[in-house]
Every structure is written in structure tokens, then in C-alpha cells.
């Protein structure tokens, strides 16, 4: 145990108040610092913070640090409010991730429904997708690709680290539902043939 001189007791007091999960009274501080003159030390500590960005205050007989009131508004900070992505957005994002570069008609072909402009806008605004090169076919449609931020958010070092179809199958994410086997005459080849892109 160090902390004998008045300076050290002041440091100790400062550290205890800083780390405390709740405001502390003088009595408890006296016990924990071993300083009989804790009242004087508290005043000294408060003075040493005067005019700084942080101040030591006493409320209801208990002491705590807090940020200087005039700075409260200035330290306002953006708080992330969790929002869930719609299923349409998730699917569109997944298709872009797996099929990039991919055009919007291709995305719609894979999803089987029209993609609202808002979905891509939203993904772009979040910063997970961006437009890529134009496809060199008639009409030169824009393609869509994922961004660095996408990799970062989903914890992927690289696009190659995106789990492949084999991995998905292993996890059980490709388990097919029971098939509508009753359609008469629809037997034979379970051909899909609709691999869009």
C-alpha cells in the first residue's frame, strides 16, 4: 500500500470517485482513503477541477464527478437506435452479396418480384451497397455491388469469406420445405432451370 502523503490521498480520492458506480458520501470516502480530513480533500479536489470540462459536485451529501453543465449540449452525441431491415431489403442485400455485380432486373428475376426503388436506396444510404460498372449489354444497365462497410458490418474479412452454398447447406439454411408433390403429371426431373443471372 502506498498513498500516505496528502497528495497521494488526494489521488486516491480522485480515483475512487472516478471509478465508483454511484455517488459516495464523505464517511465512506474517509474509510476507503484512510484520510481523516476527507472533507478538506474533497474541497481541494473540487477546486482543482474548477473551470475544467469535468467538475466534482456534491448533491444530497454525496460526491460525484459530472461533465460541466455548460457542455452538456455540446457533448450530445448520436445514439444508434436499432432498426430491423425489412425482408425485402435483406434478400436484396443477400442477392447483391452473392451475385455481384448484378443488375436490378437480375435481382428482380432472382427474387421473383419487382424491387422497389426504395429498397436499393435504403441499402445505399446505409452504405452497404453501391453502384458498380455498367454492364456492357444493350441499355448498359447499372450493376450493384457491396461495399467495404458491408464487409465490416457483417464481420467478413473478404467477400471470399462469405459462406458458400455448401456451408449454408451444412448449417441447414437450404433445407427445402416439403415439396408440393401432388401435382399430377409433374413428376420426373426436379429441374429448376430458372437460375436467373
Amino acid at each position, binding site marked *: 500500500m502506498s498513498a500516505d502523503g496528502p497528495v497521494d490521498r488526494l489521488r486516491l480520492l480522485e*480515483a475512487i470517485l*472516478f*471509478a*465508483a*458506480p*454511484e*455517488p459516495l458520501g464523505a464517511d465512506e470516502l474517509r474509510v476507503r482513503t484512510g484520510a481523516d480530513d476527507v472533507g478538506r480533500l474533497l474541497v481541494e479536489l473540487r477546486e482543482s477541477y474548477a473551470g475544467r470540462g469535468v467538475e466534482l459536485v456534491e448533491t444530497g451529501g454525496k460526491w*460525484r*464527478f*459530472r*461533465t460541466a453543465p455548460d457542455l*452538456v*449540449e455540446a*457533448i*450530445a*452525441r*448520436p*445514439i*444508434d*437506435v*436499432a*432498426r*430491423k*431491415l425489412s*425482408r425485402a431489403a*435483406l*434478400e436484396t*442485400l*443477400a*442477392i447483391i*452479396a*452473392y451475385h455481384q455485380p448484378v443488375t436490378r432486373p437480375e435481382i428482380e428475376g*432472382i*427474387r*421473383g418480384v419487382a424491387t422497389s426503388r426504395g429498397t436499393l436506396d435504403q441499402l445505399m444510404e*446505409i452504405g452497404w451497397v453501391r453502384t458498380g460498372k455498367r454492364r456492357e449489354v444493350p441499355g448498359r444497365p447499372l450493376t450493384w455491388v457491396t461495399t467495404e462497410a458491408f464487409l465490416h*458490418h*457483417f*464481420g467478413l474479412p473478404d467477400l471470399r469469406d462469405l*459462406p458458400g*452454398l455448401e456451408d*449454408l447447406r451444412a*448449417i441447414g*439454411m*437450404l*433445407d*427445402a*420445405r416439403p*415439396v*408440393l408433390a401432388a*401435382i*399430377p*403429371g*409433374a413428376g420426373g*426431373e*426436379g*429441374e*429448376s*432451370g*430458372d437460375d436467373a443471372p
Partner: protein
Amino acid sequence: MTTAADPFEQHEIRHLRPDQLVLDLDGFEGPIDLLLTLARDQKVDLAKISILELADQYLAFVAAARRIRLELAADYLVMAAWLAYLKSRLLVPEPETVAGDAPAEMAQALAFQLQRLEAMRAAAARLLARPRLGRDVFARGMPELPPSLERPAWEATLHDLLSAYGALKRRREGVAYAPPSWQLWSVEHAIARLRELIGDLPAWGTLASFLPPGLADGLLGRSIVASTLVATLELAKEGRLEIRQEAPFQPVWVRRRQSGDGEGVA
């Protein structure tokens, strides 16, 4: 597996004396761990360790262990055999013709293995000796949450993304089970067939007589009937056929349109 309060506590030497009754092999994580502990017993720089002496100690230890309890994990015995072999090669230099690694090289590799593990243990100990957050040093106990400007944080995990893609794939596989078109009798097909047939049929015939023989049951059969009916309507429109039906649900009669009615045929 050691779970002592200080995980880097040295193994007690008394556990290692071959003549000691207490042989605590459970305290070691495999033969390399045991070897390293024995090597420390030589009290020299690991870089100058005598591998011969170490081999002797290990073999003595294993011999003692086997005297007391016969069960000894296989990897300890493999290491014993390997050390015995290394020892024989070190003691009796053999001609160059012998295949395999030179004994000096083998000894050196083992010494490196021990040094490297020792270095990592020392590194771990130095890491643990640092002032650690939440144990030695403390962050602010009452962080203040400043007034917030709300910002949407899109909550989507890799799991969400993968399930969405998985669901999509499943959905598409489901779509694929719709009856493929080649199993239906297309209208084009029926028209082509009718065009061929009507030339041979000047008199009235029932629609059924135009259907292919061996009409299939089910969807295909129904599609043949429907397509052929549509085909007759189409050919009638073209002026090639006449259609007649006595009453609802009665047979449908068709025949080739009689010539001399003038209208050219496209």
C-alpha cells in the same frame, strides 16, 4: 489440465523425482509440457540444454510412472520411444548412409520447440503482469449518457443475411416444382396436328377423333383436349374448319371447310 489460481505456477519439482511416489502426470499437458518442466530442472539456459540429459530424465520419469501405474497416455510413450531413438543416434554416430534426419538436427529441433513454448509462456506471464482493466485499473464507474441525437443503426447480422438468402433459394426451388411446360400439349402443337389431319377428313368427325391415340390421363390429357379445341376454333377463324355442336355437352363435330366458299386462305 491445471486450473490453479496462478495458471503459470511452476510444476513442483518434487512431483518429478522418479523415486517419488507421487507422480502427477495429470498436471502436464502432454509430453512437450513434461519435457519443458524437466528441462527447467537442468537450471541452464534452454539454448544450452543437454538433450541427452533431458532424454535420460524423461525416460527415467516414464519408467517410474509405468512402475507405479501402468496407464500412460500413448503420446507419452511415443515421445519416450522417439527420445530413446534420438539418444541412441546421439551416442553412436552412424555412417551417413542412414536415412532420416541427422541426430544433431533432431536435437536442435526439439530444443527450439521447448524454447519457443517457454518464450510463449513467459510472454503470457508478462501480459498478465500488466495493469489490467477492471482488475488493476478502472474505467469511469458512472459513464454519463449525453443527450442523444438518434441515428438509425441497422440491425442485421450475418445470420440474418444468410437466412434470407437460404429462404430465397428455398422459395425458388419451390417454384421449380410447377409442372414444366413440355408436359403440356401446346395450342401450336394441336394446330399443327390438326392442319395435317383435316386434309384427310372431308366428312364430319368428332373432336375426340382428332385427339392423339393413347390419350394420357391427368393434366397432360386434359391439356390435349383443351388445346385441340382451341386449335379448332383457331382454324375455324382462319376459314379452314367448320364446327358444329348439337347442344351443350354434346360431342363437338368438325370438318374441313367445303371449297367454293370463295374466301382465300391466308
